[in-house]
């Protein structure tokens, strides 16, 4: 018993040390939500490796009072999505960069900065800011998300009332060696409205980001992000989504490089006949330091006849580590659920590893739920076939890796955006040939 108290004391100390370094905004519409979140963080304490939810990922660097230094890498070639018509908003080290950003105006969409809106006492985002995050704290605690709600310095409040004619693109640049950014975005997709949100860039040496998305009846939300290529950066991100009746939510994440990335996605399907897909492709090379990539997904079905898909693919080399923790929870009464989950990894050498915990928790009988998980090396037979047709070994490998990732990329609905992602992948693979 005494041992337990000692353990908890250490957790409390670590949490307080982290809180001490935060700048906690006060006043404005978000003040009550921020105060609640701080209380949640204090009650939960920051995670430790012993916690079941952090079994495969060491949260120490995310918990530390200061960010570990990480150099920024120069962009290679044209920036991602440069050719797409879009509204571009830039944050540098978590600070809004007005000069680099377009005007915050897009037909059918209201866009405001959190830091500015927060001066008002009343705002539509009051019903969303920290609300989905708080709901997402059960059954598993997510202390870093509570920390974010309490301390986020900025972010975007996006209200979609019509069909946006072009995507909204948030680009995160990184310049300060020890930049420690905390951003929090809220998106409310009104009934029947539609938006595509793009996110790119490394953001900071350490980045804590929360995206809360509320998709109302018949709304459609597409999310495509490419996490930046800085080798040494660390990130913990959360997407909290609530999906209403006949609504659609789709999220795809590409991750290349990064010492440590933990992407959590918590999707709650609350309206009948809704669709929610979440996908990820990660390519990791442990050569330049290390690569640790963790996808933690929790999909809750709380309505009838909904469909969910989780598609996660990882390609790992040189001692890279891939983690997948995924869950489909089907609540009592969520009949006719179609839940699917696949997590696969391709280990390109002997040193890399894949750790997975794909879970199902089902309380309704008329459902179709399945999950699959596979791990292995590149298929020698397929490689041999391509080589026997005259394809050089490296091209053959690239081809097989791209085909392995195809299922995840197929989750991006917009063909042009998908092509941009594939081009980015090809570039990465070409640079990393040995």
């Amino acid at each position, binding site marked *: 018993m005494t041992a337990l108290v000692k353990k908890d004391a250490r957790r409390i100390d670590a949490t307080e040390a982290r809180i001490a370094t935060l700048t906690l905004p006060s006043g404005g519409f978000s003040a009550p939500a921020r105060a609640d979140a701080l209380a949640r963080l204090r009650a939960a304490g920051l995670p430790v490796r012993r916690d079941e939810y952090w079994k495969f990922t060491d949260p120490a660097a995310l918990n530390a009072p200061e960010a570990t230094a990480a150099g920024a890498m120069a962009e290679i070639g044209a920036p991602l999505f440069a050719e797409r018509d879009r509204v571009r908003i830039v944050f540098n080290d978590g600070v809004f960069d007005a000069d680099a950003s377009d005007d915050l105006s897009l037909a059918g969409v209201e866009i405001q900065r959190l830091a500015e809106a927060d001066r008002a006492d009343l705002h539509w985002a009051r019903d969303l800011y920290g609300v989905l995050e708080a709901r997402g704290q059960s059954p598993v605690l997510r202390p870093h998300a509570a920390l974010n709600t309490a301390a986020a310095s900025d972010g975007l409040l996006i209200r979609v009332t019509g069909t946006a004619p072009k995507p909204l693109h948030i680009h995160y640049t990184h310049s300060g060696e020890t930049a420690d950014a905390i951003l929090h975005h809220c998106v409310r997709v009104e009934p029947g409205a539609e938006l595509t949100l793009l996110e790119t860039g490394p953001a900071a040496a350490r980045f804590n980001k929360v995206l809360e998305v509320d998709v109302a009846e018949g709304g459609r939300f597409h999310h495509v992000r490419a996490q930046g290529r800085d080798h040494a950066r660390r990130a913990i991100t959360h997407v909290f989504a609530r999906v209403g009746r006949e609504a659609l939510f789709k999220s795809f994440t590409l991750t290349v490089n990064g010492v440590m990335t933990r992407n959590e996605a918590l999707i709650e399907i609350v309206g009948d006949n809704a669709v929610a897909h979440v996908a990820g492709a990660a390519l990791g090379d442990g050569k330049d330091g290390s690569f640790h990539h963790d996808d933690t997904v929790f999909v809750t079905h709380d309505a009838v006849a909904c469909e969910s898909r989780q598609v996660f693919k990882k390609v790992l080399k040189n001692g890279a580590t891939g983690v997948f923790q995924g869950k489909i929870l089907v609540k009592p009464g969520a009949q006719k659920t179609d839940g699917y989950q696949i997590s696969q990894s391709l280990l390109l050498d*002997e040193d890399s*590893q894949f750790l*997975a*915990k794909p879970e199902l928790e089902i309380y309704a009988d008329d*459902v179709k739920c399945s999950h*699959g*998980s596979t791990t*292995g090396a590149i298929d020698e037979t397929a490689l041999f076939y391509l080589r026997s047709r005259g394809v050089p070994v490296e091209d053959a490998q690239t081809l097989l890796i791209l085909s392995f990732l195809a299922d995840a990329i197929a989750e991006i609905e917009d063909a042009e955006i998908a092509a941009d992602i594939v081009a980015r992948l090809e570039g990465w693979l070409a640079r990393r040939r040995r």
Partner: protein
Amino acid sequence: MDIEQEKNMDSSQGQSSDVLEVREGVDRETVETVQNMGAYKYGWETEIEMEFAPMGVNEDIVRLISSKNGEPEWMTDWRLAAFRRWKEMEEPRWAMLNYPEIDYQSQYYYAKPKSMAEKPKSLDEVDPKLLATYEKLGIPLKEQMILAGIEGAEGAPSEGRKVAVDAVFDSVSLGTTFKEELKKAGVIFCSISEAIREHPELVKKYLGSVVPQSDNFFATLNSAVFSDGSFVYIPPNTRCPMELSTYFRINAENTGQFERTLIIADKGSYVSYLEGCTAPKRDTAQLHAAVVEIVILEDAEVKYSTVQNWFPGDEEGKGGIYNFVTKRADCRGDRAKVMWTQVETGSAITWKYPSCILRGDDTSGEFYSIAIANNMQQADTGTKMIHLGKNSRSRIVSKGISAGKAQNTYRGLVSMHPKAKNSRNYTQCDSLLIGDKCGAHTVPYIEVKNNSSRVEHEATTSKVDDDQLFYCRSRGMDEEEAVALVVNGFCREVLQALPMEFAMEAQSLVAISLEGSVG
């Protein structure tokens, strides 16, 4: 007579035994069992005078159990060390099980029939009441008797294989059959208490070597207070001449059963081991915490089959056995093989993960499981496949069936160590839900630390297929029969892995366990 009429006639006769004769034997078995038996047929109690140790557990009780078994000092010390560790440990809470706090001090840790005070020299001297108990359970304790499958299945395995039985009643082993014949083959099959006295060198070498003294909360408690269990040693290059079996019966009230089984398969040997368990119907829950350790040396093979049919509690969840079991096999030598097969139909709470440590190169581990939870039962069961050796193979087939208000969880680990090159795992866990008040869960852990190994995991959850049900019903089956048939089909892969006699018993158990789950 037109076809329509013929069909009608067929279906109208569906309930009569004439038509049953026409069906395949397997099907008849299931249907008859469902028709003829109560939900739990082993719920009766043997009225016999018992000798109990004082209630609760402390060092004195541990010493008492040790002295009752006439153990040497090293064994007593081993138990005490475990007990001291246990006091420091906390009960695990990670399983998806919900049960009231267990008061470890309100249990009896040792209960022995009075007539066993003087250890009988042979089964002939055992109290006839006890022998009658086993007879009633269908367990042959007389050597001239051979296991002929379950009642009503006469003639099924016509040649009737010999099975040696160790019968454990509450805390003590009553006796072991076919001892002489086994001795001729060099096989040692006796109770663990006897082994501690007669073969201390083997026990000392292997006890706790697979499941360490303080492995987990329940195994540690078992290490401290285990009262009896079975011991098997198969000498090198020996094929055990018959199947070995242990039958566990909990009889006394408020008594926990803590048995320990140790199986050692020396180089190149083979044994198939069966385990069965039942307990009387009672309103209060009873604790069962067993440990099974299996050591498998080079080229040896062990098959371990369990049909677990402890009293599951009543429909409201009153009573039943809390079953916390640690089972582990260590494939220590190259090319060692182990196969776990389990049919889990009983127990109010099941917490059980038969595991394989694939230490040697080219070793193989298999796990076949059917877990059925009905009414208020909760099962959290699965396996661990720890691949350490090169070219090791493992296969997991788990079928979970939930009905009533039951919760059924598959929890498993597949771990590929960096050195376990070219290893292979295939996992399939399927869940079937019958009714909308139950739950089916899957919690697999997959850890792959090298790239020449391949790991594949698949899981599905679904309900009993309406089309299949409709088909069966259109052939004149009532809904319960139809569900039993579909479920037996769902479990087929696992049932096939069981030894013949067990497979038949398991099949009828599947039907019984699901009784009352439909409609």
